[in-house]
């Protein structure tokens, strides 16, 4: 008996996590650590405290990300490769954007962003086609298009970052400083959040709805480019020359992205709930994920958004304490951030403590997006305040 007990006890021990990793997982880790080490060795002298801290923080973070979400690795690697290629092709000469074939048609920030726009729009149509033609192949294609669009968007941003330094060392800054740049950031982040859940719940049929918001954002970017020449890189106004911007803005847009995702899932939820009553055999009722799953995705992305928006608002407060003479000034943008948080806090409480589910929460998530959109755009357009440099 005792023998068999030992045997049995061994049997009941679980393989430790590290043993479950594949060789490529280790290659991935090695690549990132190697990269970070190289940067420290080669450019360490040029980096300040923050930057070294960020580098050391981001490396394990991305290793973990790659282990937890395998497809992210392909994305990050290709983005890194393309961005570095662009940087090398540029050298020290901004004019290369016109001379060099690759830059001109592919990976100068402007071209990359145009590619992103085109791919996102195509992906949107593909997702819809796949949904209503009930074609898995088409939705798979749509998925690939979305991945590529996200990649091109990121490349566009990274290269734009470099280009700003090529204009003049003083002009150089991270491209999250005006509406044009953050709209691209928004499209990419929303897409990536969606792709994450697409993988987790392996369901592609939500893409059609999520990509709608992204396409809208893309539409704005295009109008803003051709209507307002917003793509021209402008130097930072003094108020924005701060390290906080680098973290405050991206955190904000993870929030915006997550909330938009939740809202569009909410739309899908409502459509399916309706379809189940009216056309139980239609594409919507059969292809969309179960209501339970959509409810879950909605909750998860609102939770994610809530966390990052809280983080962003706090970072904003810290920044304000350094730039405006107070961590809270009831400036319209600030106040609307608070409004968003309160709104979603109410949502979360309803769901968790009152156990609300289903259509009402879906509707609320959709309304939440309207509130969020106003905080994001409306405030810049209609209300003046300390944030007004974000104006259209």
């Amino acid at each position, binding site marked *: *008996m005792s023998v*068999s*007990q030992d045997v049995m006890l061994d*049997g009941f021990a*679980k393989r430790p996590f590290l043993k479950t990793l594949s060789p490529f997982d280790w290659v991935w880790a090695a690549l990132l650590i190697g990269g970070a080490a190289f940067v420290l060795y080669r450019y360490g002298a040029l980096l300040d405290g923050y930057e070294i801290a960020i580098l050391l923080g981001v490396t394990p973070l991305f290793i973990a990300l790659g282990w937890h979400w395998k497809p992210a690795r392909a994305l990050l690697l290709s983005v890194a490769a393309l961005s570095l290629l662009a940087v090398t092709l540029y050298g020290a000469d901004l004019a290369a954007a016109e001379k060099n074939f690759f830059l001109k048609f592919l990976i100068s920030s402007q071209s990359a962003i145009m590619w992103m726009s085109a791919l996102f729009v195509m992906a949107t149509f593909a997702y819809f086609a796949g949904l209503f033609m009930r074609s898995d192949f088409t939705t798979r294609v749509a998925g690939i298009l979305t991945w590529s669009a996200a990649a091109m968007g990121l490349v566009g941003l990274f290269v734009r970052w470099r280009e700003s330094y090529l204009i003049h060392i003083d*002009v150089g800054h991270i491209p999250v400083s005006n509406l044009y740049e953050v709209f691209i950031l928004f499209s990419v982040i929303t897409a990536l959040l969606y792709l994450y859940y697409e993988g987790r719940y392996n369901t592609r049929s939500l893409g059609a709805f999520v990509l709608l918001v992204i396409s809208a954002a893309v539409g704005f970017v295009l109008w803003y480019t051709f209507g307002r020449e917003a793509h021209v890189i402008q130097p930072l106004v*003094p108020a924005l020359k701060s390290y906080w911007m680098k973290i405050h803005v991206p955190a904000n847009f993870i929030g915006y992205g997550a909330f938009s995702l939740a809202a569009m899932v909410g739309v899908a939820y409502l459509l399916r709930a309706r379809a189940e009553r009216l056309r139980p055999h239609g594409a919507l009722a059969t292809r969309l994920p179960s209501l339970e799953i959509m409810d879950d995705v909605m909750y998860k992305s609102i939770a994610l958004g809530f966390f990052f928006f809280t983080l962003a608002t706090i970072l904003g407060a*810290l920044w304000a304490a350094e730039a405006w003479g107070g961590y809270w000034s009831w400036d319209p943008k600030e106040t609307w951030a608070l409004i968003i948080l*309160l709104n979603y806090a109410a949502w979360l*409480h309803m769901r968790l403590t009152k156990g609300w589910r289903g259509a009402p929460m879906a509707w609320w998530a959709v309304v939440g997006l309207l509130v969020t959109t106003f905080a994001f755009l409306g405030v810049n357009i209609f209300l003046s305040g300390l944030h007004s440099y974000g104006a259209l």
Partner: protein
Amino acid sequence: MNTRAQPRSTGAILLEFLGSMNLAITLLVVIAVSSVIGTVLKQNEPYQNYIIKFGSFWFEVYKALGLYDVYSAPWFLFIMGFLLVSTSVCVYRNAPSMLRDMKNFRDNVTAKSLQNFHLTATFNAASAPSDVALALQRYFNSHGYRARVKQHDDHVLVAAMKGRANRLGYLFAHVAIVVICIGGLLDGNVPLKLDEARGKVKVETRVLPVSQVPAISRLPAGNASFRGVVNIPEGSTAKFIELRLRDGYLLQELPFAVEVKDFRIEHYPGGQPKSFESDLVIYDPEQDAPLARTISVNHPLLYKGYAVYQANFGDGGSKLTLRAWPLTAQGTAREVRGVVNDSVKLDSPQGPLTLEFSDFKLYNVKPAPPESGKKFRDLGPSFVFKVRNADGIALEYENFMQPVEQNGRLFFISGVRESINEEYSYVHIPADAQGGVERFMRFLAALRDRQILQDAAVQVTQLSLQGGAGENNPKIRKAMADIMQRLLERFGEEGFEGVVSYLRANIPPDRQQAVQTYADLLQEALRIVYGKVLAQEGAAQQDSPQFFEDALNALGVMPQYGAPYYLQLTDFEHVQFSGLQITRAPGKNVVYLGFALLLVGVFIMFYVPHRRLWALASRDAGATRVIFAGSSQRDRLGFAKEFDALRQGLEARFRHDNADAGM
């Protein structure tokens, strides 16, 4: 009265209500909605603006509601306080049970209740319950659960849980709300409001020099928390700041004095401003040496719990040296000295004038009017002033110091408008060969010289009649010369408009083609006048071909310029003020602590779900029967997945066990 008679005391009922979720959610929504007010209605504007916007009736209503400073309006603070109480009560009521919940493994559950769980499964094993229990304990451990084995008389129970920190998450996040509110109150102006209500301080609404502000509107240096502003001209020192409050201000004394040595604007290569910087010196009686620091936007000076920010800048009284060129009468230019934010008297043919200088700019990086769009360039120094006549009517002007290049020629640009909410309309005075306004002004003066005009009129008449019918007809010659002179005078006095109206009035409709003829003749006559101007300058003067046309364009609109003088800026001494914001916020660190708690708490609540597993092993009919169950109040889908994986794992392993035991 006797409370024992009641089932629950009033206190308990009150707690129940205050801590209730419905109240909480209502509060969250109510605060969200009322916060909107302050974002759509611009806060803390001068009351005048509101009166204009809403009319005096609604102005009073909104004022009573405190809408001009919503976020410190009593009712708003009241709701905030309500949330504070509600959250505290909520924590107070939930904390104990949650802390207990963290320790409690629930190792007394019965087989029956386990079987009724949403997630449950049963297995058969060969080994004895105690061995099975041991194995399960290790199994749960290896999956990150803390597991405890408890012997009951007829069965063994393995109770396991993970993520119990989740409860701490709740505590952190909600205590954080309380902490943040308290910190905010410390820094808010509630005490000040109370003092005001009690009549201990009074908001000053008049614009007074510091020395004349009455004591009741002054706050002592000790004041714990405030946020005020002060504009300090370069080279001056300030010991007081203004706390803007509604339609007025209070004067806050500082425990130290601040001097602004110098204010600078750094520029990008493209000319846009890159940074605003002030060199400050702090004179603190408690320090034996003054402290020199440079601050800039995003880089404040932190000193003894006070923070000094670069908030604003403007002209602090630049000294301007001007040359006033007469436009309406002959006469020579004279020198005028002015100071920005000050005024000087100046007499003119139209009576006494006041020049009120309101601004001076060293750089003007913008498109040169009338251009627009993205063609930015530096147009150099400019100054803004009002010309007010005896009746108090004023026009506003914007003059640029240096001539601005446009289509290859240089112009002195001057804009005029009747009110601030209008665009300037600009006059472009062509610069002469020396890059000055002299030639243009001489041309202008010539147009005021009757003799010159008469000669020009006669000359142009002769030219036009040569070989024509009326050449030797003195009557026609006279008549025509008169018309030409009148036209010249009209042009000088009323510009293009004058000429047009004159021709309209004096030429019968059926001879309209004559209008063009006269216009051409007028142009000829003016050219003759211009010729005389050049002659005065001396034959050596080379003439730029375009100058004449450009001058006519300017002369043609000069009468609408409105001022009897053109003020040319010849020299200046630039003096700026630096707008500092000085604050003291002792609650800041409390708030930051709250921030940290909130983030940690929220993260834990979302991403450390509290999960429980049970396995109850009992012997019956020669085998060991295992009831396996689990529960989690968060992320049910996720947990269902995990539970299923665990179940399959167990199935496989128990198959082994049974096999080993040869069953």
